[in-house]
């Protein structure tokens, strides 16, 4: 196998791992805040999830470029926290403007979620993980996309389950966040079960 082929293969494995076994939400708990508040309805959850996939894939790549070609040559690696946040915020703002102008319909379904994303720790977390794990550019594509899809899957599944919870009798103190967390724990168990597939 040539070098690029090996990289692409690695990117696919990373993508699969990011979706299931290393799900950014269920194993590292990033993006919990919108997770508990937005996961009440499947429709809103899928809107937010879609926006996360898109923004996460693009910003990890942008941040990879910024890190590799700006921060490393300048020896300012510790500035990545600030630079990544600025890039994420600017990107989200830019996308919001573009779809507002060219596709009002998409703006209505996706646009309202974009501001929420800037403060989503999963987005920044994905970029920080990418730096620490020293991913190459191709692997970063797989990672950013996979992490986004993993988050999407988790929030959709949660919203689906929570819609049914409305009818159930739950102890008073456990209602709301409590029961959400227990379900998330059960989901995390199921997702970790995919580990064996990776060999």
């Amino acid at each position, binding site marked *: 196998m040539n070098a690029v082929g090996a990289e692409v293969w690695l990117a696919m494995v990373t993508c699969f791992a990011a979706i299931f076994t290393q799900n950014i939400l269920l194993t590292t708990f*990033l993006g919990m805040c919108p997770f508990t508040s937005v996961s009440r309805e499947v429709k809103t959850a899928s809107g937010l999830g879609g926006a996360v996939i898109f923004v996460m894939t693009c910003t990890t790549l942008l941040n990879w470029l910024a890190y590799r070609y700006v921060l490393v040559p300048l020896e300012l690696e510790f500035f990545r926290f600030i630079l990544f946040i600025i890039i994420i915020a600017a990107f989200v703002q830019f996308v919001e403007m573009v779809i507002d102008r060219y596709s009002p319909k998409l703006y209505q379904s996706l646009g309202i979620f974009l501001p929420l994303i800037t403060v989503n720790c999963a987005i*920044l977390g994905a970029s920080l993980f990418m730096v*620490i794990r020293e991913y190459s550019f191709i692997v970063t594509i797989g990672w950013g996309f996979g992490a986004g899809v993993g988050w999407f899957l988790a929030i959709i599944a949660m919203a689906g389950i929570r819609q049914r919870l409305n009818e159930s009798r739950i*102890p008073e*103190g456990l209602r709301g966040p409590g029961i959400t967390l227990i379900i998330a*724990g059960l989901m995390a168990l199921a997702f970790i079960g995919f580990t064996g597939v990776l060999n």
Partner: protein
Amino acid sequence: MSPAKPTRQIMLDGLWRDNPIFRQVLGICSTLAVTNVVLNTLVMCVSLTLVTAMSCMTVSLLRDWTPKNIRMMVQTLVIAFYVIIVDLMLKAYWPQMSRNLGPFVGLIITNCIIMGRCEAFAGANPMRPAFIDGLFSGMGYSFVLLAISVFRELFGMGSLLGYNMPYFSTAYWDNWIIMVMPPGAFFALASIIWLCRSIKMRETKS
């Protein structure tokens, strides 16, 4: 929020009444992942509490000069400033811990609690109350996460802060492997929220 809130009340609010974790499960993202070992959690919580207190103080100090429309940017900058200091210090003086915590130190920046306190309290109050408010909000948050980590390390590994505990490290106790894995954090947090909410409900009823 009235500006003349007595110090004692600020402390109580941060620790118990307005505790952000029980109320809305806010801000756990950056820390929950490292709660499988008490020591990591402790370092993370101390960092977070210091960053919150110092950021609140700085935001409060700058409040008269900061234009309203760019205040979020200024707050992010201030928070990031303190987080980078913590990150640099850990890297230089405690490299092992810095490796253990990995990206989670950086993720303190996106912790909703800090931004929330800066926005809700520090932006409109003098430095001293702002500092105390930040400090005690951070502590209220820390005590929940520390409780989780004690739970997880003791049941999952039979030790606390790395020291083997009597009974839990003997053959009488089977380590709950699930507790050191990620799902354990969800279950531990859910139990603690359940407990505290139930106590609170009794409080409000009586």
